[in-house]
Structures are given as structure tokens and as C-alpha cells.
């Protein structure tokens, strides 16, 4: 079936060595992540690979320990709220910048992207110092604000890409048919850039969900996220529960990343 599709597209067959090379690169990326999954099913109380026998005790540990569960809930809450804010801000910025031209647009775009290239530790220290003054450290709001700022560039990039294929004449057509600019945005622009928006939202969510540097600075005894708890458990306790939690994170993130892909293929088959 794939061969037939390739013929349809008029693409030459792929040589075997290219497939082999591709597989090697894929393994190099995936293997370290995959090792953690068998580890999580080990019964030993220290890390050992390959695991000698199978058990679910670390999962049991994870799901019964309130410390782990609370930090998982915190992480989820922070990521959802941060992604929400980043998506709204990033989409608005992308749509606005798309209509601007010239130097100002370039300058604003660079400004909004700057957190992507700034070293995480620099951002973290800056956030920590300012949040100390504003009493936002250790609070849900503080985490959400800091993580939303990290997510904006991802949304900006993906929505800008989606807008690249958007025909502005459609907005004129919509206006001529009696739709106000806001209605046109809701009924024409949004549906056509929705894939970019969803992709951006997923990236923003995942960025927040596995963010550890800022989270370490902002943590407090009353509020910490899952990555911070995982860091603690490795550095202070060497607790194999971390392998269970890691496996859960890997699976969750993979599923979340598949969401835009699934939406895309559903559209195509329709």
C-alpha cells in the first residue's frame, strides 16, 4: 500500500541503505527512553537492567503515594493553564504580526521568540528574582505565568506557519458577505488555522509539563511539579518509583503529540 502511494506521488523508491540509516537514527533517539519502561516493571529496589523479574510495585507506589500524585496533579494543572494562556497570546500575536509588515513586525517577532534561545537557567534566575519581589514563588499563578511565557514562541511559530497557507482574500469575501472582522475570525480564520493552533497548544503543554529548571527555583514545600519531585527522588532517595513515573510521562506525552497527527489524518480521509 505504501509502495502504491509512493508511485502515486511520483517519488522514486527509497534505497535499502537509507532505510537502514533512518532506522539507526530512530533507535538512537528512542532507545534511552525505551529503557526506562522495562526498568519500571522490575521488582528490585535498585536500578538494574535488564530487569530480573516482573512486578507492578513501583506503579503501585506511584499511585498510592500522595507526594507523587499531588505533584502529578500540580504539573497537569500548571501545564493546562499555561498552554491555554500561551495559545491565546501566541495565536493573537501570530495573527496580528501576519498583518504587520516591515521592521516593526520583525522586531516584535524576535522579541516574542527570545525565550526560545535564551538559556533556561538565565530565564529561571530572572523569573526567580522578579517573582520573589512579587511573591509569586511557590504559587500556582507563578508557575502558570512563567510556563505560559515559555510556550508562546511555540504557538507563534506553528500558527504563523499555518497562516502562511491562508488566503487573505477569504477575509474580504467574508466581509462582503456581511461578517464583522470578529465573526470572520471565528468562522473562517480559526477553522483554517486550527491545526497550527492545536500543534502550538500541544507544544506549549509539553514544554510546561516537563519544565524543570524554572520549576526548581519556584518550588516550595507546599507546591511542586512532577519533574521537581522526580529530581528530588533521584538525588535524595534513589527511589525506583521514578522509572514508573518516567514511563507514565513518556506514554502521556507520546499520546498528546499524536493528537494533531490524528486530527490531520481524519481530515484527509473525510
Amino acid at each position: 500500500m505504501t509502495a502504491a502511494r509512493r508511485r502515486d506521488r511520483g517519488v522514486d523508491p527509497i534505497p535499502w541503505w537509507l532505510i537502514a540509516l533512518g532506522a539507526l537514527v530512530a533507535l538512537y533517539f528512542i532507545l534511552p527512553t525505551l529503557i526506562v519502561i522495562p526498568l519500571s516493571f522490575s521488582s528490585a529496589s535498585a536500578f538494574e537492567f535488564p530487569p530480573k523479574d516482573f512486578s507492578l510495585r513501583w506503579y503501585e507506589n506511584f499511585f498510592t503515594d500522595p507526594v507523587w500524585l499531588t505533584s502529578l496533579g500540580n504539573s497537569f494543572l500548571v501545564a493546562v493553564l499555561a498552554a491555554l494562556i500561551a495559545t491565546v497570546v501566541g495565536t493573537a500575536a501570530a495573527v496580528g504580526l501576519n498583518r504587520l509588515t516591515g521592521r516593526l513586525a520583525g522586531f516584535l517577532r524576535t522579541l516574542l521568540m527570545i525565550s526560545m534561545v535564551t538559556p533556561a537557567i538565565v530565564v529561571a534566575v530572572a523569573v526567580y528574582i522578579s517573582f520573589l519581589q512579587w511573591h509569586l514563588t511557590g504559587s500556582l499563578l507563578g508557575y502558570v505565568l512563567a510556563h505560559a511565557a515559555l510556550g508562546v514562541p511555540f504557538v507563534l511559530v506553528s500558527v504563523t506557519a499555518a497562516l502562511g497557507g491562508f488566503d487573505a482574500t477569504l477575509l474580504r469575501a467574508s466581509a462582503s458577505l456581511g461578517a464583522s472582522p470578529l465573526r470572520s475570525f471565528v468562522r473562517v480564520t480559526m477553522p483554517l488555522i486550527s491545526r497550527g493552533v492545536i500543534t502550538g497548544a500541544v507544544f506549549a503543554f509539553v514544554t510546561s509539563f516537563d519544565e524543570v529548571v524554572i520549576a526548581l527555583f519556584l518550588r516550595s514545600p507546599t507546591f511542586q511539579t512532577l519533574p521537581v519531585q522526580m529530581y528530588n527522588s533521584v538525588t535524595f532517595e534513589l527511589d525506583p518509583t521514578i522509572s514508573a513515573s518516567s514511563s507514565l510521562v513518556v506514554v502521556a506525552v507520546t499520546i498528546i503529540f499524536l493528537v494533531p497527527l490524528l486530527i490531520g489524518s481524519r481530515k484527509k480521509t473525510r
Partner: protein
Amino acid sequence: MTISSKESATAPPASPSSPTAPRQGTQIRLSGVTKDYGLAAPAVDAVSLTIQPGEFMTLLGPSGSGKTTTLNLIAGFETLTSGTIALDGADVGTLPPHKRNLGMLFQNYALFPHMTVAQNVAYPLRERRVPKAEIARRVAEVLELVQLPGRDQNYPAQLSGGQQQRVALARAIVFDPAALLLDEPLGALDRNLRGALQMEIRRIHREVGSTFVFVTHDQEEAMNLSDRIALFNSGHIEQVGTPEELYRRPDTLFTARFLGDSNVFDLGGSPVGAKASWEDSTWTIDPATIAGHPGVRSHGAVVVRPEDVQISRDLQTVPAGANAVRATVRDLEYMGSYRTVMLDVGQARQLGRARIDALDAAFAVGDEVTAWWKPERQRVVAV
């Protein structure tokens, strides 16, 4: 140039194509409409034009002449620098496009790709909160009108270019707009489809009877479709009139050259009276053929259409009273239904054209001939 003074002189025809129009359209009046982008010259310079209710008015002109900008000003996509635009006397010059109630057709169709044909056509009705049952009825009705029934559940990408433009047309007229603005809607279609859709647009104009404002750079299309044509040239209107008026009675050399082929004899500064001389020929001038344009008096040109030019081998066969000029046959083009004789005319050997019968094979390249025409068939225009 303001043409409002001229308009009273050449009253628009009572829309000959719509004798049984069910509804009168809207009058569109432009006065002193100007759009200045701050470049060397304004894109649209003090254009005044009254488009009558139910009229099919074409804004014709070369690219960059201001015709599309004028249409966008009417639609509200561009803001006026100065001047007013009124629909049935109500000033709409400052209204945003979505409040002007004007339908628009675009060259690239501009259908919403994420909506079916039915959803596209229902879009303006939904924006106007028309009840669901009535939406369904009117969508079916208008798809019938554009002869596209049974495709309402298709997406635009599943339709051909011609079908997509029919959907766009249905969408643009389903909400009974005050007028329909058409921005080169046939530009992206191939020749055959273009002809078919021209007929469609003419039929739909007849049936709905509303005002149509059509922009094109294609003079043939303009002549085929329009009740009247406003010919644009570098930001102003050169001439307004029926296709026949513009073709037979051009006021300026620009009009004469833009519509159809012309033989042009530039009279330089020599005066135009009962006689005019060009090189060593002296011609009779019928006063009725002199354009009313003030420029004619200072600098005129005699324009003759190729189909009005006859050629003869010897002077004896040229009838008395005809205006004649010596010429040499440069080339012959067989066009199927007629033959075009390309001529080197006069001492300047300027290019001339005569259209003769396709079966007339009496001439060969290099022949010395006399080209002649009746004085009432020429036109004296301003250069």
C-alpha cells in the same frame, strides 16, 4: 477628468437586456472619488460616475489604471482619500465592507475551503440570522439559478474552476445584495469556459435585475457583457458609454486604440475644419465625426477602423468623395472568416490595416494600392 457633465448628454440605455427585470437594482453614485497612496500620482483621481439601477457597468482599463482600486473603494476594502460613494443616495463612503450589503466575486473564487457548497452559499444568510428553513430553500433556489444542483454536499476542492465560480456567484447573490461587484471573475478560466460563464453572468444579470459592476482588462469581455463601459486610464475615466459608442465614437486616441484595432493618422497641430491634411493627402471631414473633446482643436487624429478601409489597385475605382491614401501591401493574414491586409501607409510607411473578404485573393505582398474610406466612417479624436 470629470465626466458627470457628459453623462446627461449620453443617457444610459434603459437596460435593453432586462425588459422584464423582477426588481430594480441600486444606483451607485461616485463623486470626486480619489485614492492617493502618496505615490507620484493618485491611483484614482477624482472619478465621478453614476451607475444606474439594474445596469451592467464595466470598469475597463489596462493594469494600474485604477479600475480595481475603484471597485475596492466601492466595496469598502480601501478607504477614500476624498470624494463620496452613495448607494441610492445614502452615503456609504465610511462604512466598513460588512455593512455595505454588496456582493463580490473574486478572481480566485475565494470559497471557504472548510465548508461545503451549501455551507458556503448559506454563509451570508447565517450572518443575517435568516431562519434555517428559509436558508435551505434559498440555497437550493440559487444553486438552481447558477445551474449547479446536486453538488451542495461537495467541498470546493472537489469542483472544477468553472463550478467553483458558479458557487461563488450563488453565494454573492443569495442575500439580495444592493449590487454585485465582480473583480475579473473570469480571469483564471480557460477560453471556452470563459465564454460559457460570460453567457451565464449575462443571463443571471437579466434574471435578478440588480446592478452589476464588473472589472476587467479584457475589451472583448467588456463589449460582450456591458450595458455601459467606463474606460479607465491612469487613474481617471477616459470615456463612458455603451460598447458601441466607445467603439464607433471614441473621444480620444486612447479609447480608439484600447477598443479594437485602429488606423491612426496623426494630424499634428494642423487645424481640423471641413478639410484636414495628412502628409500630402487632403481629406474631407464630416463635422459629425469630430469628437466633442476639447483636445481635438489643438491636436487631433483621424481614426479609421480596419473594417471600414477598402483597398483598390487603381485610383479609378476609388469613389468620388472618399478619403484616400497611397499604401504598399506589407503582409496578408488569413483569419478564416476574413483577411487582414497589413499596409505600409504614406511616406512614413506607418502600419495600417484593412479587413477584406476572406475569398478576395487579389493582393500580394509588395503591391502598390490605394486605401480609402468614406468620410462618415472615420472619427476625429483628441491625441
